[in-house]
């Protein structure tokens, strides 16, 4: 009751970090563990104030490794849980992101990307962690990563991230950049009844028959929580459906690892979200995500004014990679332009999907995002 | 008291000791020998033949000496031995 009243609704002016925090609360996140790091700190700050108002837990751990570990623990104890960080912290979290994957733990990790490597540029934007998002932890696994390009999306996609994570029992990453995180914009928050919330699939049948890693047809096992009498075991070791270690068995390993990949890939059409602008007849297709997509959009509009048949494919879901959509755009386009704030990461995926269509990469490092003009230039060169 | 004791206590034989029933889960034993070594009454000894794991499990020498302190049960790393008290009807 007090919760309802506390939930924000209506139009607000806020920055991306705050929007993310509010989104988490709206999504039902009741556990946040983190460690201060620019430019994600405001998420922690805001949640330290808001979480208690919802009976939720905020704790600042001793480091990012502890934060992600605590998040996994809290999730197994039945709470929707999240942590937020930036590059250096994201790197520290990788091992336990692997653990979350292996133990199929619903949880959300927000990475506000800044300039790397190492400590790099704490206060400037980057898109250099998008590959780490997919490949950061050792071993093969499927994972979901979303890229908001507005403060509104910081709110919306945080909710989306929780929903996907709960649906597929997979850690879900919100890969935002420093600009989106610190930018102030109008955010419209619908009444809670209008917000779609997904909760994890609970076990059916009696506790003594429960197998924590026995998947249903959707390849996702129902999840029980600690203290509910299921007395189940989970481990980072290769394990069978009971969760018991089976480290010597090749078929247990392949069965498990393939499922961990496929439960995401096989559902990619359900997972993937993209935005298409004037692509129908586009000869030059721009593929962009995050804040860069906003410049790209403006560049496309200017191009059209200048008579260039330009279009934009904005990636909202980075992983699983929207391969089909890129291929489709590539088919009719003469050329593709991919602006990224890195030395070329998602562009490789685009090239792979473009199948021959020339792909022009526009790189930007260490300063503000691409200006529309810079992207327009690239389009001109290829039209 | 200073004086030396010369007589054995009266009615010594009448004292009732609870009768022990020692259970060995022989094939679960890894033969560490703790139960044998630390039994205060030396009720156990190393068996002469090996078990399924190829080690020498304990073997009961004299069950009647057991006072059911259950230290063997407590110190066994392999949950391979436990002691219960024989139901009364057999003793009294």
């Amino acid at each position, binding site marked *: 009751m007090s919760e309802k009243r506390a939930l924000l609704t209506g139009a607000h002016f806020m920055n991306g970090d705050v929007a993310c925090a509010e989104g988490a609360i709206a999504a039902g996140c009741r556990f946040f563990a983190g460690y201060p790091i620019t430019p994600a700190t405001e998420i922690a700050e805001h949640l330290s104030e808001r979480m208690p108002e919802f009976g939720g837990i905020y704790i600042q751990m001793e480091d990012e490794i502890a934060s992600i570990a605590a998040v996994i623990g809290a999730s197994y104890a039945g709470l929707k849980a999240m942590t937020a960080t930036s590059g250096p912290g994201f790197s520290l979290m990788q091992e336990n992101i692997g653990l979350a994957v292996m133990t199929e733990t619903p949880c959300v990790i927000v990475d506000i990307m800044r300039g790397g490597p190492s400590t790099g540029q704490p206060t400037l934007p980057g898109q250099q962690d998008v590959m780490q998002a997919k490949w950061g932890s050792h071993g093969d696994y499927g994972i979901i990563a979303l890229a908001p390009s507005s403060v509104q999306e910081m709110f919306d996609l945080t909710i989306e991230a929780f929903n996907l994570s709960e649906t597929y029992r997979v850690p879900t990453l919100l890969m935002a950049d420093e600009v989106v995180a610190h930018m102030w914009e109008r955010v419209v928050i619908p009444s809670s009844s209008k917000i779609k919330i997904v909760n994890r699939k609970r076990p059916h049948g009696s506790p003594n028959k429960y197998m924590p890693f026995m998947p249903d047809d959707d390849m996702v096992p129902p999840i029980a929580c600690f203290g509910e*009498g299921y007395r189940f075991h989970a481990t980072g070791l290769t394990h069978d459906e009971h969760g018991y270690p089976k480290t010597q068995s090749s078929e247990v390993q392949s069965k498990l690892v393939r499922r961990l990949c496929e439960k995401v890939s096989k559902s990619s059409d359900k997972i993937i979200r993209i935005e298409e602008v004037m692509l129908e007849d586009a000869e030059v297709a721009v593929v962009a995500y995050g804040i860069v997509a906003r410049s790209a959009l403006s560049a496309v509009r200017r191009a059209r004014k200048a008579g260039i048949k330009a279009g934009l494919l904005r990636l909202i879901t980075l992983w699983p990679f929207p391969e089909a959509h890129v291929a489709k755009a590539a088919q009719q386009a003469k050329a593709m332009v991919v602006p990224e704030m890195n030395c070329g990461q998602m562009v490789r995926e685009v090239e792979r999907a473009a199948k021959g269509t020339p792909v022009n990469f526009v790189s930007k490092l260490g300063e503000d995002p691409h200006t529309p003009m810079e992207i327009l230039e690239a389009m001109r060169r290829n039209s | 008291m200073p004086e030396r004791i010369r007589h054995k206590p009266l009615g010594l034989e009448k004292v009732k000791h609870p009768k022990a029933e020692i259970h060995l889960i022989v094939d679960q034993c890894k033969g560490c020998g703790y139960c044998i*070594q630390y039994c205060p009454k030396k009720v156990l000894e190393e068996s002469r033949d090996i078990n399924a794991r190829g080690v020498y499990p304990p073997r009961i020498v004299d069950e009647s000496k057991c006072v059911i302190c259950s230290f063997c049960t407590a110190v066994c790393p392999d949950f391979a031995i436990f002691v219960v008290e024989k139901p009364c009807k057999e003793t009294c």
Partner: protein
Amino acid sequence: MFEKEVHPFSNYLRSAMIPHIWCPGCGNGIVVNCFIHALDELQKDLDKLVVISGIGCIGRTAGYINADSFHTTHGRAIAFATGVKLANPELEVAVISGDGDLFAIGGNHFIHAARRNIGIKVICANNFNYGMTGGQQGPTTPIEALTTTTPYGNIELPFNLVHLAAASGATYVARWTTLHVRRLTQSFKRMLQKEGFCFIEVITPCPEIFGRRNKMKTGLEMMEWFRRASVVENFSDPAKAEIMPEKIVVGEFVNVEKVSYEKLLHEKIAKINEKRMKW
């Protein structure tokens, strides 16, 4: 002699996982045995117990005890447990892990959980080395001990775990050897009845990996060392609680009452919401 023997504690164990993987003479089984004994005497509700462990021989414990259990990554058991305990304070959260896991790679989490006084119960099986990886030197390896990575004798001063725990703010600190099964069980019981962060160090024989290299080939030889050298000094200064060839100081060192982190936190949350209702 008897047909199918059923151990009184069998319902506390995951039958599918027993017998355990531990070597003959390994003390880990005794730690589990005593822990279960304590649970049994306190009639603890296994449905509300979560056993969490890290990596290493003793790390397998989570798999053996028939309760909710989680086998975390190396060193992170305490951090994971913190999340569990805060998320559901009703749960009895026990971390059972090794000296390397808790105090080398996981040392930071240990001191901070103790400082925050998170109401988790940490049990460390100290076998003086990294057993599972074949016996390397670790944070508790005694001076001059031989390990696969100190072939010329260890020159690193070991941690005094009980001193570390006490200094970090633990509300209950004890050390026993696997020969002190009665006192160990009693300590487990005390610990399980306390609110705040508790720590018990159990010195366990590791004959196959550590003992073999240090003139104690069998578990019995290591247990005999414990018997010979142990001195019970309850509530003596943990700073002076040495572990030496000729003297091992064991006992209860700390037992104080302190409001746990989760209690404070949830009280605060309640207060905050009260205010908002009034307003």
